[in-house]
């Protein structure tokens, strides 16, 4: 795509702004900031990736993945206001998932060990894991509040913290996986995924694009399951005080 063609896409932003002005949505400032940020961030990422792909340095790959994980962890942790020490727990969960996923993909030679494959796939799985973490924490908070009676009944009968929240954790992990499982069920019927669409537009063979999309969907399912379960194991004790009483998590 030429720069001239790219600049024409600003027309879509102008249409959105006009709608905002016409309907008095008061979104013009947010749209302007969003447009500038998106353009700068994506262009910067494009140049960084170009540099990393050319250098083929393992250190740069690791640095980029670490950066992605840290940003994802801080973003997902916003869903757990009032819970301390949650950022490093998310980081540990995503790192474990990333090592397992990439380990499998590379050792089975499903993908090539080059930055072109490792970085985009890591980005997508980390992003998916971030959504799963955010959903898990949101649901854990809701479930803890709505199932207070259930948890305290179990505590009253002498349950451990794990026994008291086992069902709450199960329900929260299940909830965090709903978008991934729903996407897996409807892919191709309701939506054409971004990666597949991008590959086709860029001129790849549609069958080859579909193969990669299948890979991505399976990796997503497994990554959200691993991350949510790991996070649930690392987080459940944070719901309780040292005396095994439910914390007022507000």
């Amino acid at each position: 795509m030429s720069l001239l063609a790219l600049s024409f896409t600003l027309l879509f932003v102008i249409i959105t702004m006009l709608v905002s002005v016409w309907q008095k949505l008061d979104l013009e400032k947010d749209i302007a900031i969003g447009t500038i940020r998106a353009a700068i961030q994506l262009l910067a990422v494009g140049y960084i990736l170009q540099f990393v792909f050319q250098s083929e340095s393992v250190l740069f790959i690791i640095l980029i993945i670490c950066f992605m994980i840290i940003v994802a962890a801080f973003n997902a942790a916003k869903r757990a206001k009032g819970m301390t020490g949650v950022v490093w727990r998310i980081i540990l969960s995503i790192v474990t998932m990333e090592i397992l996923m990439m380990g499998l993909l590379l050792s089975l030679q499903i993908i090539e060990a080059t930055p072109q494959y490792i970085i985009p796939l890591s980005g997508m799985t980390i992003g998916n894991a971030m959504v799963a973490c955010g959903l898990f924490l949101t649901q854990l908070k809701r479930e803890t509040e709505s199932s207070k009676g259930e948890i305290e009944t179990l505590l009253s009968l002498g349950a451990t913290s794990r026994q008291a929240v086992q069902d709450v954790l199960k329900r929260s992990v299940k909830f965090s996986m709903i978008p991934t499982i729903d996407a897996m069920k409807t892919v191709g019927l309701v939506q054409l995924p971004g990666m597949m669409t991008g590959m086709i537009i860029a001129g790849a063979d549609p069958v080859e694009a579909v193969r990669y999309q299948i890979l991505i969907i399976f990796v997503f399912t497994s990554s959200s399951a691993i991350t949510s379960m790991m996070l649930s194991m690392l987080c459940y004790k944070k719901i309780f005080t040292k005396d095994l009483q439910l914390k007022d998590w507000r």
Partner: protein
Amino acid sequence: MTPLLQIKQLKKKHWDVQLKSELFSDITTTIERPERIALLGKSGEGKSTLLRILAKLEPVDSGQVYFNGKLMNEVDSRTWRMNLCYVAQQATMLPGTILDNLMISSKIHNRNFDENFAKQMLIEVGLEHLDWGKRAIELSGGEKQRIALVRSLLLRPTILLLDEITASLDQQSKELVEQLLNKHHQNEKLGFIWVTHDREQAKNISERIWYMENGKLARDIMTSEFFDEQAIFQSQVKL
């Protein structure tokens, strides 16, 4: 001899810190052996909170509680709750069937499920007709309350902390529950602290009254004495 339960200078602030006042303070009393105690007082005096503190479900602001001479903070919460078991006013059924609910404490503590004991108790509270495979959530409020009580009794605690557990029961079921607990007191040496607003019930199920008023344990006397005092007070008011 070491008292069974000792409460010393217990103080709890209102949950709403802006109120800045104490819910209760200076609660000091002793239970020497498993006793039947009725905890009376107006709504909002902190009776349920006191029970929850004794069950270690809520933190205390100051004061100490000892069970068999051991300080609450120094005893593992699980061990503590196996001895002082709280039964809430709103019975919560755990996911699954009635049998799942009845078996829960044996599952938690890896013990054998005493089916005959459970059956016997269900007969005594008028629930012998229930199909144990039925989903617990489908039970009526009164049935849930009685299942919750039996579930706690299967844990075989030393003291039961009962929070208005018969409030949603009809007269007949209420009497069955009272009889069951009185029998357990006699045969199994079960002690209980029972929050109730029903004075007639307090007479039937207790030998001792704790009466909370203005954030204090205003009276801690034998049940007969308490009701004698009340009768005298009421006759004086009439005069």
